[in-house]
């Protein structure tokens, strides 16, 4: 049983709702953020329909799409857990609004990893990062192991030990705030 919203690190995490479609569409079509995403049509109705379909998957426990807000209840970004197979999950759709606090990215990443491992009981995370997304690549390579790559993407895995290392490291960075 998942009880939401969850307040952690000064952010509030809750599931995405259809009413968040405009915010999410704004992130996914932002010229800078969208450079490292699969293309998204600038179509609010389509985004709403996608979220409606997602809510079905959420109800079945197949996928969790989080939105996080700051203390003023302003949405700051999103991140998604999906493709649950045995003890493995995928993490993606991670977007943080430009202008967010300097540590929103770290806090949201910490939350999602902890939630997947501690609340959902997963043991490893598979994810892909665009090679051109240099900032995120450098960060993930600190903790995750490279499995393979193709022309555009790196495919990585983070097991429970790597998660524990990451948790310790990232909490030490933001510690005064938690």
């Amino acid at each position, binding site marked *: 049983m998942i009880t939401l919203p969850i307040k952690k690190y000064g952010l509030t995490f809750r599931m995405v709702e259809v009413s968040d479609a405009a915010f999410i569409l704004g992130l996914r079509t932002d010229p800078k953020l969208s450079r490292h995403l699969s293309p998204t049509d600038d179509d609010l109705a389509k985004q709403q329909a996608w979220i409606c379909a997602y809510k079905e998957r959420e109800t079945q426990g197949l996928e969790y799409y989080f939105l996080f807000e700051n203390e003023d209840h302003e949405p700051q970004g999103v991140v998604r857990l999906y493709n649950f197979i045995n003890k493995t999950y995928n993490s993606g759709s991670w977007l*943080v609004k430009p202008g967010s606090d300097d540590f929103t990215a770290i806090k949201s990443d910490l939350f999602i990893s902890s939630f997947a491992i501690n609340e959902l009981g997963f043991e490893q995370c598979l994810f892909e990062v665009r090679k051109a997304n240099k*900032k*995120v690549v450098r*960060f993930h390579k*600190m903790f995750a192991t490279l499995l393979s790559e193709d022309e555009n993407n790196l495919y990585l895995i983070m097991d429970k030990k790597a998660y524990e290392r990451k948790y310790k490291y990232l909490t030490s*960075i933001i510690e*005064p705030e938690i």
Partner: protein
Amino acid sequence: MNIEQFVRQFAEQFDEIPTDDFSIDTKFKENDEWSSMTALSVIALVDDSYSVRLTGDDIRKSSTIQDIYDIVASRVTA
């Protein structure tokens, strides 16, 4: 630590804006690209290249590349 190399490495964390004029005095948060992702990238750079852990406070209190350099230099030699 080489200060010019540090500025160059710091500048490499930015890939959306011109960084040719980045110097030790550059106020690194005062541009369109600075974000929580860039902060994360700078923290990773410093850890990877100098084995130094920057804290949230370090980033928050720093405004120029010199500020970050000084923190890293003090911990590298510590």
